[in-house]
């Protein structure tokens, strides 16, 4: 088993954990964390695919894509956090009232 394979399998697991977490978790913060975990899985798969060639350097394109992706994901997570806090301040709700 190659190194990259371990991580690409991990990435699939993370993705599924994240997608499950988004739907199952109730609290806003946990939902947001779940989206970031999902993103972590996706980025891990990108980078693990970059590592499989035994060339002079690893494929730089996925690395660049992942950096872009991480920053984008963080921007949207910050926005989601702002929304969640605002909702809590206005209504004292920590989760969506009707489930899902």
């Amino acid at each position, binding site marked *: 088993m190659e190194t990259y*394979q371990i991580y690409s399998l991990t990435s699939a697991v993370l993705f599924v954990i994240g997608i499950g977490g988004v739907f199952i978790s109730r609290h806003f913060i946990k939902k947001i964390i779940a989206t970031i975990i999902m993103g972590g899985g996706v980025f891990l798969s990108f980078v693990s695919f970059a590592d499989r*060639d035994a060339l002079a350097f690893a494929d730089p394109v996925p690395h660049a894509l992942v950096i872009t992706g991480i920053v984008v994901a963080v921007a949207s997570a910050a926005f989601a956090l702002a929304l969640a*806090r605002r909702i809590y301040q206005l209504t004292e709700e920590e989760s969506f009232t009707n489930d899902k």
Partner: protein
Amino acid sequence: MSVLIDILLAILVIYLALQSLLAPRLSQSVFLFFAFGLALALAWVRLGAVDVAITEAAIASGFLGVLFLDALRDFSPRSSEEQKNISTVQNSRSRNSVKSLLLPRLSLVLGLGLFLLIALEAVWNIPDGGGLAADAEKLLPQSGVEHPVTAVLINFRAYDTWLEIGVILLGLLAVFAVGKIQIYRKPIPVVDDILLRQVILFFTPVLFLFGAFLLYFGKTGPGGAFQAAVLWGAIGILLHLGGRPIFLLIPRWLGQLLLTLGLLFFLILGFLFIAGGATLFEYPPAYAGVLILIVETLAAISIAAALTAMFANLNQMKKEESNKIDSTN
């Protein structure tokens, strides 16, 4: 043999991800999430993605970590007694709803399990080769930088990067939209603790220099605008926490300029190239190196300013002001 590290790290990452979602208390979740970020950064290192590791450690763990800590302050119950009440209420509620939720939950979990199996199968079948490494290697000398990741980011796929800088500004605007634009106006008390003040004062230049080093080093090795930006953003956050909110201390127009500088310069440069008969972001080869450095520096400044403003705005989001509409833009 080295597979052992990878397997252990993989298990750790998965365990942390699961636990941060399953932990009963919010603070446990958040701290397990920090640990998740750090473990993931180690995974990037194992995969040879040093740039990604720095970015992950700095922004996904550091910046988001501070944001989450700040959010935790809102969400954590005010006293232990209240907390007990809430938890008992939740318990009883969950006990009542356990039966009604069992079937959909079970089917959801089963569905996810099936999904996971297909996903694993799909990932396992990825061919062990292919990618753009060879292309990037071939064109690297024409890009104006020596580090392939920076070349891809700022030159080959500059369009994505430019849009991404736009996304950060957009994220800030979105945070403003939620908070009804209250760029904080109230002065924050300066920290009374001498040691803390000194540490902040000491770390400001260190962070600045290290950021500048990473920025410049990005030309030849792992590092670059985003990593530098987060470190510089950390300066802003530290100063804000230490009672020196930057956006209060500088004039309004300067703040706006700092926030938009990277995006605007990048774009106007692109338009100039178009006017000169080339395409958007097509650097003249002779000046590519210099232009990329300028673009990166300005982008780093803008992103740092945006991160600082995001944190400051979230940190200042207060209950009392929530019903008031601040119309001063």
